[in-house]
């Protein structure tokens, strides 16, 4: 089943690669846009959830239970869940698109590795994954894109130092995206805000680590996906630009 899923990714990637004139980097970017379109309903749901969470912060009942149960964390959590239930809010909805990304990331990583086929066995597996006609003239795929070899981790050597530029861009764009979509909370002890805050720290580090370690084609996916996410939020006027300013929440 999983292999079938990978095969779909591989075929779509190779088809785009063929259409755009044998450019695998461009194929990954267009593929990412396609993924964003397919996962659009999930993203929309996430934005809706984030907006609901935002509104909740100014809800009087919400503020009252925060004060009332400030010293009883267990009771506070129970009351919060009750309010979530009553108002039809899923506190995890803002995390969902991030979590949905994981199977896509894993499948895309395996698809890139399979499509670029750096070993004989990979090349043989690739031949079995492709259902497009006349691909023998496309294989092996050109793994070069700008300064990168998409099948390898990326680093630019500046004055003898290998700088992982893509990993840095991945970490920065992931941080920006996470911060922009994070609901503003002024309530101390708000677990969902704490969770979002935690995600905005861990996810850039995690994805940055992936970008540092794995094929740079995956970094192209991360960056494209993050930039599209940022643009999407900004265009819908739902981006919290204030969250990018360190300490903005505390001052409020």
């Amino acid at each position, binding site marked *: 089943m999983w292999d079938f899923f990978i095969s779909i990714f591989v075929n779509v990637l190779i088809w785009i690669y063929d259409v755009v004139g044998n450019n695998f980097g461009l194929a990954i970017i267009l593929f990412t846009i396609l993924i964003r379109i397919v996962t659009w309903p999930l993203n929309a749901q996430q934005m809706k959830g984030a907006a609901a969470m935002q509104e909740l912060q100014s809800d009087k009942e919400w503020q009252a239970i925060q004060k009332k149960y400030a010293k009883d964390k267990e009771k506070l*959590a129970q009351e919060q869940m009750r309010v979530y239930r009553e108002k039809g809010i899923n*506190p995890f909805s803002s995390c969902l698109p991030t979590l949905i990304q994981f199977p896509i990331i*894993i499948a895309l990583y395996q698809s890139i*590795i399979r499509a670029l086929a*750096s*070993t004989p066995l990979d090349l043989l597996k690739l031949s079995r994954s492709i259902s497009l006609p006349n691909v023998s*003239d496309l294989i*092996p795929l050109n793994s070069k894109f700008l300064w990168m070899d998409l099948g390898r981790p990326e680093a630019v050597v500046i004055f003898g130092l290998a700088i992982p530029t893509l990993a840095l861009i991945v970490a920065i764009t992931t941080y920006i995206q996470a911060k922009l979509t994070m609901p503003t909370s002024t309530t101390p002890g708000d*677990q969902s805000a704490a969770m979002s805050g935690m995600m905005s720290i861990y996810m850039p580090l995690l994805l940055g680590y992936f970008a540092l370690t794995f094929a740079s084609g995956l970094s192209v996916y991360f960056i494209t996906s993050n930039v599209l996410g940022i643009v999407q939020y900004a265009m819908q006027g739902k981006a919290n630009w204030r969250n990018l300013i360190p300490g903005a929440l505390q001052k409020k």
Partner: protein
Amino acid sequence: MRKKFILVITILLGAVLLSACAGGPVHGSTWSGLAADGSTVYLADGSVYAVNLSDGKPLWRYPGSTKLAFYAPPVVTPDGLVIIGSAGTDHSLIAINPRDINPETNAPVDAWKFTGAADHWVAAPLVVDNKLFAPNSDGNLYILDLQDGQSVKDATVVELGGRLWAQPRTDGERVYITSLDHSVFAVDADTYDVVWHENLGGAVPGSVVLSEDGMLYVGSLASRLEKFDPATGKHQAVVDAENWVWSTPALEGDTLYFGDVDGNFYAFNTSTGKLNWNPVKPDGPITASPLIKDDHILLATESGSVFAIGIDGKTVWTQKIGGKIYTTPVTAGDLIIVAPLETDFYLAALNANGGQVWTFTPEN
């Protein structure tokens, strides 16, 4: 709190799953490299193993790691060094000396190391007198002087392009190299100039064969067997196969034997320009090159079988080894050595009738 825990676990699980994709030198990551001399079998399967030909007992192991992972067929030089190329993150080509074993590690000591390549070593290098013609996945042919251990650091580089996955062949005048960028190159053996360069319309993962009629033959992923004039590079398709021709054809007299990844096995007569018989279909895809032994053609399939086929195309015997066989078997002494994947053992030795003589499983 519980939900936070689930979230973190989910992220970590994703990280672990993705990390598992990268891996180190693992048996089965790709197919192994196999070689043998009169007394020893050399297997590159992450680490490099030396096994006693007569009984399958381990002699030594040169350990692999994520940095150094060996899958290219080892090559034994006339002075007894074993050359192994890494497909790990370190792209070294190393000559190890089996006569100089470190007693603490039971691994041979490095005689020299060439670190000038930029990508994986998949192909076995070719030794010609004191020169080593070493094709790398970075598209370069590195020509090393083997006269002493120091000269190898100053390799001559011939930039060809594409990934070079097959061992070069030579007729003494020119060295022929194939590339996954669909090309076959002829390089002057003395000046290292590219004499000609031809495109076959499909990647070429196998080596060329020099036939008795003075022509070159090579298969490609364009599903064709092509015939070349070695002087000019002028070529034409002589067999349209059903699917990719991965393996290097084996030559016996005026007949070339080769298989395709659909599992068809062909016998092409270079004198008549026709197939000797309609392709036979043993039992699975063929990526390993056939071997000629005595009056038989030995053939290994992905289905884990070894076939002895007569020159009339009839099967003489079959031995089911198990697992999947992609690596070209080797013959040494009276034995046929096979390196399957997805089995408990890494090597199996068969006698001339296909009977299993020994198997080799590395110690943990």
